[in-house]
């Protein structure tokens, strides 16, 4: 239907059947993921201030070093997985990276010592786990129908058309893993202190959503 959604591929790296390609669209997304990952790498968490509304009382939350290390590691892993999902040219690899983003998103907030946040993280984790079903199923139907998982092949338009159900499942899987753009379910997670890390949650799911929009428009 539509040719070349993200622009002409500028660079294609074929490594066996693993291939990586850059279009103006994916390169923009990749650079953004890279920028934020570097930010996570070099920034320290903020001291979140809690106030009692209606009173004068306020106090800052401290993040212990071990917790900070763990969360920073998770946030960087999340950034790397996001970058992978942005540049991969293989649908199954994309789903794997997406699933990894789901795990690391939970990991980013899992170390927070707050029952609210942990509860939200657990519930979100359940959704993410459930979302791997449509995610992998979508990729499998892609492979079954077209016989290929390569996005470059899909882009050429010579393969059989991908059924709408596969696209829907892929989309549903990404929405479940990253929750973008329905972050409302994640809102409790964003109450966790440690802005640079928490921001990675929303960034990764947003970028994944933007990428999957491109992918479902390919076939």
């Amino acid at each position, binding site marked *: 239907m539509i040719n070349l959604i993200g622009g002409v591929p500028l660079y294609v790296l074929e490594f066996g059947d693993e291939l990586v390609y850059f279009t103006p669209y994916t390169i923009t997304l990749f650079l953004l993921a890279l920028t934020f990952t570097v930010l996570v790498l070099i920034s320290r968490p903020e001291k*979140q201030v809690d106030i009692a509304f209606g009173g004068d009382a306020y106090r800052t939350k401290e993040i212990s070093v071990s917790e900070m290390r763990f969360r920073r590691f998770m946030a960087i892993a999340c950034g790397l997985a996001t970058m992978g999902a942005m540049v991969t040219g293989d649908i199954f690899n994309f789903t794997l990276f997406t699933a990894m983003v789901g795990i690391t998103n939970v990991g980013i907030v899992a170390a927070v010592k707050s029952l609210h946040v942990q509860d939200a993280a657990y519930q979100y984790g359940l959704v993410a786990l459930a979302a791997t079903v449509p995610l992998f199923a979508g990729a499998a139907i892609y492979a079954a129908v077209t016989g290929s998982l390569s996005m470059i092949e899909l882009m050429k338009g010579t393969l059989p058309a991908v059924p709408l159900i596969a696209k829907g499942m892929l989309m549903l899987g990404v929405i479940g893993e990253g929750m973008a753009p329905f972050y409302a379910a994640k809102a409790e997670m964003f109450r966790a202190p440690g802005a640079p890390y928490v921001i990675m949650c929303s960034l990764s799911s947003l970028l994944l959503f933007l990428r999957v929009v491109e992918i479902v428009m390919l076939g």
Partner: protein
Amino acid sequence: MIAELILATFFGLLLLGIHRKIIARIQRRPGPPIWQEILHMLKFSFKTTWIPKTATPVLFVGVVLIAIGIWTAAFYILVSGGSILVILGIYMLHKIVEHGFGLSSGSPYGKYGGVRSVISAASEIPLFVSVAVIAVYTHSLDLSAIMQYQQVHGPLLIIAFPAACAMFLVILSKMPFGPFSIVEAKELVSGYKTEHFGIWRAGLEICNGLKTFVLLAVFLAVFIGPLSLPWLLVGMILLIVILAFACALTPMMSPFDSVTIQMLVTALMLVYAAIVLLVVHP
């Protein structure tokens, strides 16, 4: 190139000033002069500045740079007639920027502003649907190709009117004083930008000017077609007048209502997209 960028920024700020002035006049106030937003930006840039002790310094400063950077990128994509999908992506990333502004300071007001910006993400789906509809008609997502299509077939504003309405709503949700601007509601002081003062705020104003310019120009390019520069500026002023009326005549909604209405619009848009996909262009 740099000259265009600076001019676009200032024109965007001027548009925001016009927006403010019209709202004031509708509400029977004299209102500030229309160049108030430019003065505002300059005023903030002369303020003494530091970084709050509770903030995470790198993100606190970095997010201002990113905010200006992404809209600069959007401006050049607009100029070069690149893919509308990238501009859309940048529009959605602005949400992350707001989130970063709010959370990086550690202030509770900022945090709630940031969280609100995250939950109001529902406003983006109409945008996707309208883009999908445009793609169905024009068979391309490049701005230049969309403009070419409109030169031949007439403006998409007429052909795909609901899509234009959806995009209008999306722009409305990014306007100050609008019904959907729950991220900077007064009960949160200034929402996500509460703790960004001095030059950080001035940087944010630059970003706002550029953002307004790019969003309005993209709307005109996508739904009206190629316009010469004077007509483009006139069209943008017209659009901001309409937006100002929409903002002035509607109350600010509660976060819950705002999200509900955006979801409803999304549902309507999905129905419309399905009709277009199945009936108009099978």
